[in-house]
């Protein structure tokens, strides 16, 4: 099965001999899933109405990413090449189901807010992309580190976007009001998501070109 557009993007990334720590940090800045690779845009735009929601979505993705990376790196050598993508999807979908059941039991409020975007982690390009480009070719510890690194990068980006939208849109930080005002409603609604992400990406590009 030839499947996705997101995999080749990862293949271009040079894999140098990296220490365990740089495996973790590469997902945060150099290969940041949101700002550099522009993957997983649907949850990024939809769930960042507040910093808490963004953080929750990030951690949920981090869980699935790490667990599926571990399992896929273990089974990759046993799986015939032709059916590997369906196998990966089943592994990912299984962990998403586990996550759904766990969240329903322990964080029902957050589960209700994030709604459909929890089951949609299955089709998040970041998860399948990491499985195909990294976990299938590397050992368990490296794959786990890679999953955690990308997961942290994704969580950080989502929290930052959520924070900006919350400050502008509802005049609060992590649910705590800092001003006696309602904020600009449009930033909590759909247009704000696109515009805030666009401008944050500009800022990220500017900072990156300053550093290098």
């Amino acid at each position, binding site marked *: 099965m030839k*499947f996705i557009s997101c995999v080749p993007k990862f293949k271009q990334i040079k894999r140098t001999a990296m220490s365990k720590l740089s495996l973790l940090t590469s997902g945060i800045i150099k290969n940041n899933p949101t700002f550099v690779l522009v993957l997983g845009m649907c949850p990024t735009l939809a769930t960042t109405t507040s910093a808490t929601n963004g953080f929750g979505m990030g951690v949920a993705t981090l869980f699935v990413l790490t667990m599926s990376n571990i399992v896929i790196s273990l089974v990759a050598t046993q799986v015939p090449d032709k059916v590997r993508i369906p196998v990966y999807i089943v592994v990912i979908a299984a962990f998403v189901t586990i996550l759904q*059941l766990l969240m329903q039991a322990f964080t029902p409020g957050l589960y209700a807010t994030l709604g459909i975007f929890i089951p949609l982690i299955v089709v998040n*390009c970041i998860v399948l992309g990491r499985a195909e480009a990294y976990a299938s070719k590397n050992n368990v510890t490296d794959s786990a580190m890679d999953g955690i690194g990308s997961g942290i990068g994704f969580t950080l980006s989502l929290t930052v976007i959520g924070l900006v939208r919350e400050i502008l849109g509802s005049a609060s930080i992590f649910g705590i009001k800092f001003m006696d005002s309602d904020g600009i409603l449009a930033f909590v609604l759909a247009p704000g*998501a696109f*515009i805030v992400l666009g401008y944050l990406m500009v800022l990220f590009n500017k900072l990156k070109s300053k550093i290098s």
Partner: protein
Amino acid sequence: MEYIIIVISAVFVNNILLSQFLGVCPFLGVSNKVSTAAGMSGAVVFVIALATLTTYILQYYVLVPLGIEFMQTVAFILVIAALVQMVEIILKKISPSLYQALGIFLPLITTNCAVLGLAILVVSKEFSFGGAPHMLNMVESVVYATSSAVGFGVAMILFAGIREQQELSNVPKAFQGTPIALITAGILALSFMGFAGLV
């Protein structure tokens, strides 16, 4: 009457791309040219109509009677992946010209979250189109999903038209590529907010 309300609501008021954020990846990825955007939209409408019908039957005639609704995510994604493959094979055999137009977009559609998203939405959420909130029946589900897909096409083609013009203008370096596309999409979403309250 109810079906007209469903169509207007799905295409304009609750546009799947600009207010529900489903299918944003192809929206940003293949919207450089109007012709490509139209091809992608055609493929999406076709697959979403089929996928919603299939998963609706799967949900109410297999998963619910067996009491395994928690398998929804796994079952749906597998069925959709198989369906897309099948559509590709059948289309290649019976209508090579249609395959020429839509073929290259089909493999991309499995990971289009609009397909899985709509399939899950129509069986899990209560909708109220002018009347009391209720779960959708089979015809309503397919109509709702198909018109959402048409809404995807409308937003996609509008956006591609804007981006074609944008190619000619001088965009600051830090804004080039995705950032300016996102900001443009934001303004488009802002104008779609004008439809709110229409239904």
